[in-house]
């Protein structure tokens, strides 16, 4: 008989404790943002698809060594370069990232010795066509420089 009443009492108290918690939450600031109108800045270690890093002149740091291409376990990267007339270093002419196969493992970024590759903060990636996910990173860099 005593447990009957103590159970009711403890049950009732626990209900009020629960309501106290939601009462506190009610007056706390919101933690979400209204997505299409406001966006969050991505954290430093966020992994979007890779992008090229430019030097001061806006040209890619890449020296077309091809290590990233070799490091990629899913063969997403295909790049090409040529040596210009009178120049010493090779210049990047094509850098295609097939994002449909990329698993964002980061082997390419890790393998790069020339600080030429990084993860972007891009996350608005929605499309109905597969071709939209084959990125031309060189073109992307040029557009970014404009």
């Amino acid at each position: 008989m005593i447990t009957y009443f103590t159970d009711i009492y403890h049950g009732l108290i626990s209900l009020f404790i629960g309501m106290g918690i939601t009462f506190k939450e009610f007056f706390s600031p919101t933690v979400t943002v209204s997505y299409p109108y406001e966006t969050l800045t991505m954290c430093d270690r966020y992994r979007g698809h890779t992008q090229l890093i430019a030097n001061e002149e806006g040209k890619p740091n890449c020296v077309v060594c091809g290590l990233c291409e070799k490091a990629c376990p899913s063969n997403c990267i295909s790049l090409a370069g040529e040596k210009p007339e009178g120049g010493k270093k090779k210049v990047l002419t094509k850098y295609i990232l097939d994002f449909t196969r990329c698993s964002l493992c980061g082997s390419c970024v890790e393998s790069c010795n020339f600080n030429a590759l990084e993860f972007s903060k891009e996350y608005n990636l929605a499309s109905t066509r597969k071709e939209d996910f084959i990125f031309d990173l060189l073109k992307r860099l040029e557009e970014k420089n404009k």
Partner: protein
Amino acid sequence: MSLTLLNVIVAVVIAIAFAALNAAYLVWAERRGAARIQRRPGPNINGPFGLLQPPLDGIKLMAKQLTIPGGADKVLFIAAPVLAMFPAIMSFVTIPFSESIVAKNMNVGVLMIFAFASTGSMALVFAGWSSRNKYAMMSSVRAVSQAVAYEIPMLITTITVVMIAGSTDLMEIVRQQSGSILHWNIFPVLGNSHNLLMPMSFLIFFTCTLAETNRAPFDLGEAESELVAGFHTEYGSMGFGLFFMGEYANIVIGSCMTTILFLGGWNAPLPFLGFIPGIFWFLLKLYLLIATFIWIRWTFPRTTIYGLLNLSWKILIPLSLFNLLFTAGLIKVF
């Protein structure tokens, strides 16, 4: 004579408008409140603070087609949503909002409201039965056992209050609680009864109101994790809209009844505040109770059907019966 008839009609129309407006904007309040508790902004796109959301939802529902599932009982299927909304609207007619604002006062107001309230669960039964859907059927079975279990303690606590007031007239019940907060039936230190168990009675009545209006944590009738949407699984467009509005109108009625029976109706909490019109106090108490309804819904998870029935049969009914006998004894003594 014709003038008084006109008065009654105008009052009834105002009551209906009040019910419908409340039903629409409580949906908004509920969604905003839920969002605040879950720390998100809630509907805020349509109009300032999302205030245009309810009319837009209404337009959307009205624009849709009402489909009747094959093999359904057509008459009952169409009657059920109307039956869900109708008793709630009718109950507003006899609710006294203040000394002078009441559409039609009756000396059996308490009886009338509970008679209409019990037809509310008939709507769920009809809807579940006529839909020809196993989930809806299960839901109406649950609605019946829930209605049976929770109407008993609710009526017993109401009888306790009626015994204290000595009247089933809602206005008379409120008048007897006038004076100060200590005369209200919830804190009966100075009132008619000196029954210190009345706060418990208030909690029992409030819990039963939650269960009677099928609100969380007692919304087993529409447990979406088990029964899709329960009794309104097959309803679209305004059929669903009426169920939805009926639910909120029932919440308003339940809160009105709690205010009248336990919280002193339109009476001011302290005597020197009596210069403020009664309607203000009534609406203040009413909306505080409704806010509590919303608050409870977004705090507690849904109970199980056994938990629900055990709570009623093992706790609420014995306690309310004890309180009834205790009050009867006190009335005899004093």
